[in-house]
């Protein structure tokens, strides 16, 4: 179990390392999603290093908090965070999407201990999280909590709202869901593809406690998760405003980077492909030029 208390500065440093891991993994894999994983690095860092009770050396520990990743395609961020937390060696990250790897293109519970469920097809994570939370609250009366990370675009699927209704009806106050509100999806901006707003009002109407935060502010992420623990008789949803591609200037807020890694193709308006990886890693390493001592 991770017992150490990390300072915000330390957490920020870990989140930055996770972002660099993500870029390196995607480059090595030659395919995969860039924008979502980079955008959720702070949330995952906060969950694994400051919020959840879990034990990297004993992934099946009964008393652990459960994290369901509903939008499985952002799994590089989960893998990188798990490796940083000590679930498996960092070098295994380089097997992402390769034949025989435990790090499947979309996460599989049967392959990698610590991945609570298999996901990829959007919209079914909240149901599974609610099923676990129901068992925790009503059947086994346990102390562990359930977290569910979702994308914003998957709020377009009907099953999410079936699950939202169920969690509201059953007052699953041991369930905290986090929406990656980055406003993009494969075909464009969410509000053009299928408007989601007013998202807060929708969840409130389904009997949820709703918090809106800056998804890159580690203090806010941790505070919101702690506040959720204090809410009784309602599940909590944290709408985390995030920047897709966060940390790599040319990827930020650009839906073209939803499903492609850097360094694979020349994209109009983007840096040439042989420069993409270099720029991304340098920006992350130097915190966008704040560290000036680095020379190449």
């Amino acid at each position, binding site marked *: 179990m991770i017992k150490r208390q990390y300072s915000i500065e330390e957490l920020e440093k870990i989140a930055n390392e996770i972002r660099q891991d993500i870029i390196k993994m995607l480059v090595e894999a030659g395919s995969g999603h860039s924008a979502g994983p980079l955008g959720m690095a702070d949330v995952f860092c906060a969950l694994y290093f400051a919020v959840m009770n879990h034990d990297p050396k004993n992934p099946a520990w009964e008393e652990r908090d459960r994290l369901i990743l509903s939008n499985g395609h952002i799994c590089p961020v989960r893998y990188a965070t798990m490796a940083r937390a000590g679930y498996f060696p960092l070098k295994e990250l380089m097997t992402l999407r390769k034949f025989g790897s435990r790090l499947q293109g979309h996460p599989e519970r*049967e392959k990698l201990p610590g991945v609570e469920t298999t996901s990829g097809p959007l919209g079914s994570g909240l149901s*599974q999280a609610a*099923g676990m939370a129901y068992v925790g609250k009503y059947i086994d009366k346990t102390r562990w909590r359930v977290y569910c990370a979702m994308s914003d675009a998957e709020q377009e699927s*009907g*099953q999410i709202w079936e699950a939202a209704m169920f969690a509201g009806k059953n007052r699953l106050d041991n369930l905290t869901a986090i929406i990656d509100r980055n406003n993009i999806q494969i075909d464009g901006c969410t509000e053009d593809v299928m408007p989601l707003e007013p998202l807060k009002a929708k969840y409130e109407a389904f009997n949820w406690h709703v918090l809106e935060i800056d998804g890159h502010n580690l203090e806010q992420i941790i505070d919101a998760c702690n506040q959720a623990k204090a809410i009784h008789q309602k599940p909590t949803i944290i709408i985390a405003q995030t920047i897709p591609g966060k940390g790599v200037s040319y990827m930020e807020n650009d839906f073209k980077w939803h499903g492609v890694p850097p360094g694979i193709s020349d994209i109009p308006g983007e840096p040439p492909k042989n420069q993409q990886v270099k720029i991304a890693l340098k920006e992350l390493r130097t915190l966008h030029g704040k560290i000036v001592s680095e020379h190449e």
Partner: protein
Amino acid sequence: MAKLFQNMSNSKAHLAEKIFEKDIEKIPTRNGYGEGLVEAGEKDKRILVLCADLSESTRSEYFQKKFPERFVEVGVAEQNMASLAAGMALAGKVPFISSYAAFSPGRNNEQIRTTVALNNANVKIAGAHAGISVGPDGATHQALEDIALMRVLPNMRVIVPCDAIEAKKATVAAAAIEGPVYLRFAREKTPLFTTLQTPFQFGRAEIFLQGKDATIIACGPVLYEALLAAHLLEKQGVSVEVLNSHTVKPLDKKTILQSVSKTKAVVTVEEHQIAGGLGGAVAELLSRECPVPVECIGVQDRFGESGSPDELMDAFGLTHPHIIKAVKKVLKRKV
């Protein structure tokens, strides 16, 4: 029990004494599901039962009355139900999800594929009102493809009980299996032709009648029609072996191949599309391991429709006269 039939009947099968008498008791297989849930629920506190607004007609209400704290009503939301159950299974429970087969595993097929089968989650799926014998409700509610949908999923097992007694045994057996199971039940009252003594073991086909000229392999309540056909054929001097292949996946290859290598002619019988159903499964097996003529009784690539169950079963060619014809046809094809 008719004398001729008694001679053919496998004494170890312990079939009902009154098997071909007019006053044989009739009960829907779904009742056996409800009773099985109660029995399994008494033994195993991990069992939860989920229902999508059909507690009376799926008979999950039997469990609800006994164990209200372990019954979960999810409303008209079959997709949510499948994934909720997956989450519950991953948290150590043994959830049964109950609905009509047209909706579960029909509507929620992807949720079952990913969150139940690929996760290898310990979820049991009970599809009630399967087949055309649903009757007047019509094609929308007559699941004819559910066996096929479930049979192609890795990790999934498929059981189709033939009467309410077997349905209860199958439900109890499913609860004891670690991993996903699909159980198929019917709406209509059908004959109770097995007994408490009739053996039931998951994955093992039972020889209900012994014969030498042809093998009928059947599952579900239409197995009764197969027995009736065999009984009438015996009077005409044709000796038919009848297998109860309640477990469609995994098929009991050993029993089937033993019988078929003896009779060298096969008729499959089911209340489901032939494509992807028991007929498909048996044909796949025999084409590889023991190629012999096969005739399939089942629904032939069409949807159901409204009507009385008896009318429909006859119109779709699923009753004993059709089975008799199929046996005669397969005998002509025998080399």
